[in-house]
């Protein structure tokens, strides 16, 4: 007889065997596997898509800010002490231009009570919410507004009944192109549409306006010559310094009646607001993931109940409790990994197609995928823990007693 302690020792499973053992349930019940992995997939897809879409949107804003610059400052009249609307002095532009670091200055002035219509047959009340501005010819360089069609106003056309339409204004008026025969009615006079702008993110007021030359506005529309917004650009390093003196320079007599703002700040604020919303949506995705995890746990519990005979057989073949535990844990992890991978792909696809539809650069931060993977593994491990422990504790004899 051999001695009681001989070289028999429980063996370790080969990694390939662990994966194959974990795949038994997936192979024998593919529909159930797919359905339970679907929950995880939806959760991960939701989270990846939320992060991906908000990252893409942010990347787009960053790209916009990069191309537009963050060194644009605007000056507008505020209110007087008595609450009436203030006016900027006529010389405000010249004063601002004299600030040392200011690189360029331009201005627009709202032409009061002047509406824009496509034809004379449109009822007067249907203004379309469009305003009319007198603009300087150097406005485009300072604000970064770009043309979609036609040309910008020049020294000559600024004296004539010529108009450039903002992006939204052109849409509302139903003007698709700029041509000599395309005319709109501005303040009761026919103006030829010489150009159409693209949306101007740093000067959104231009989008809903008809822009006419400064002299033309004074001659033909009764414009009073007071600027309502002065735009300035300065070197990035000097923006803060310029900002601190801008109000007093524009209106030395009443610096408190001036509003100074930095339009790029509004875009950045929009971005911050988006981030808060993203966090909320991420929470929703996490709940979906949790529900998916419960689905996997449920599947695993049923799987263990159904496969008692298999567990008993494996124990008879020499599986230790650890082997059985490993098998069911591997199955749970495989299920989750399956769902997680599908979810990540789905989320990426949703991000890519949404970004494409918005004209954004599709961005999926690598940490999203890493985080998704980590979440998947965690959910799989937690969901499989109890069923795996339960399976490993089944006595081999009970497991083999087939009903």
């Amino acid at each position, binding site marked *: 007889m051999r001695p009681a302690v001989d070289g028999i020792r429980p063996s370790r499973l*080969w990694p390939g065997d662990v994966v194959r053992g974990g795949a038994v349930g997936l192979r024998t019940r593919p529909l159930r596997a797919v359905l339970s992995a679907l929950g995880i997939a939806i959760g991960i897809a939701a989270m990846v898509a939320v992060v991906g879409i908000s990252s893409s949107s942010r990347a787009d804003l960053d790209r916009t800010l990069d191309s537009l610059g963050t060194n644009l400052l605007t000056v507008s009249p505020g209110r007087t002490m008595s609450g009436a609307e203030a006016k900027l002095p006529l010389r405000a532009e010249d004063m601002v231009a004299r600030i040392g670091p200011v690189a360029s200055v331009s201005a627009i002035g709202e032409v009061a009570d002047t509406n824009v219509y496509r034809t004379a047959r449109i009822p007067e009340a249907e203004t379309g919410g469009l305003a009319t501005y007198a603009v300087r010819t150097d406005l485009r360089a300072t604000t970064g507004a770009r043309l979609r069609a036609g040309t910008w106003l020049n020294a000559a056309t600024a004296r004539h009944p010529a108009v450039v339409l903002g992006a939204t204004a052109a849409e509302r008026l139903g003007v698709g192109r700029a041509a000599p025969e395309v005319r709109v009615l501005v303040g009761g006079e026919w103006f030829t549409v010489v150009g159409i702008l693209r949306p101007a993110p740093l000067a959104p007021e231009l989008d809903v306006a008809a822009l006419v030359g400064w002299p033309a506005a004074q001659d033909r529309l009764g414009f009073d010559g007071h600027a309502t917004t002065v735009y300035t650009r300065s070197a990035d390093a000097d923006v803060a310094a310029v900002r601190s003196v801008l109000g007093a320079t524009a209106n030395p007599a009443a610096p408190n009646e001036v509003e100074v703002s930095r339009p790029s700040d509004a875009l950045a604020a929009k971005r911050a607001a988006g981030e808060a919303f993203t966090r909320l949506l991420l929470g929703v995705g996490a709940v979906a993931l949790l529900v998916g995890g419960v689905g996997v746990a449920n599947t695993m519990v049923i799987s263990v109940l159904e496969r008692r005979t298999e567990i008993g057989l494996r124990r008879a073949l020499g599986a230790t409790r650890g082997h059985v535990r490993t098998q069911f844990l591997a199955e749970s992890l495989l299920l989750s990994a399956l769902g997680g991978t599908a979810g990540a792909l789905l989320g990426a696809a949703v991000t890519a197609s949404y970004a494409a539809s918005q004209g954004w650069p599709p961005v999926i931060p690598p940490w999203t995928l890493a985080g998704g993977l980590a979440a998947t593994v965690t959910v799989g491990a937690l969901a499989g823990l109890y069923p795996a422990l339960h399976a490993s504790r089944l006595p081999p004899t009970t497991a083999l007693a087939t009903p």
Partner: protein
Amino acid sequence: MIELTNVTKTYAGGVTALAGVSLRVAAGELVAVTGPSGSGKSTMLHVLGTLDRPTSGGVRIAGYDVGALSDAGLSALRAHRIGFVFQQFHLAGGTTALDNVADGLLYTGLRPAERRRRAVRVLHRVGLGHRMEHRPHELSGGERQRVAVARAAAGDPPLLLADEPTGALDTASGARVVELLRELNEAGTTVVVITHERELAAELPRQVRLRDGRVEQDGAERDRAERDGVRA
């Protein structure tokens, strides 16, 4: 190979399945354990197969004191020293005969390629060389049981336990399976067949009859006494 000393097994609820069984089976024997339902046959199989521990008494299997081994140790003992054949075959559905047999060696620590090599060899030995890529539902009952025997024998265990191996088979298939068990025994494996079929038991060299948890009759008592006498 097997040494049971005064083994009892009482289940929770007070049912006594084994009431003091002592049994010695030497290496190379072919033994039938018989008895009516409720006589303790199944419990005997569980104790012999180290699937269950006795309430009291000593159990030595293949030289190991079962009481001294941990659960993991018992698992290793089953993986390396004991082969099982069940009445219901317990083959994995949707898995080929070859993989079913190779998976019988899953817990021995052998490399996958070696497991397949051995599975091929043992399937040829049980006459199923032409059926290796068939799945269980494509095999007859007799063929399935031969796959199960191949799985039990793949690791060359010194002890093979068969629980009603012919219970689900017709006479001809059953005879073929018994023949296989005999061949394995002739090659040196100790085989214990648990069965309630008297005809099957009568064909085997030694019969142990259980009744109410005790050994009622041991057909080889006299033979073994002689043999032990010669050895001494």
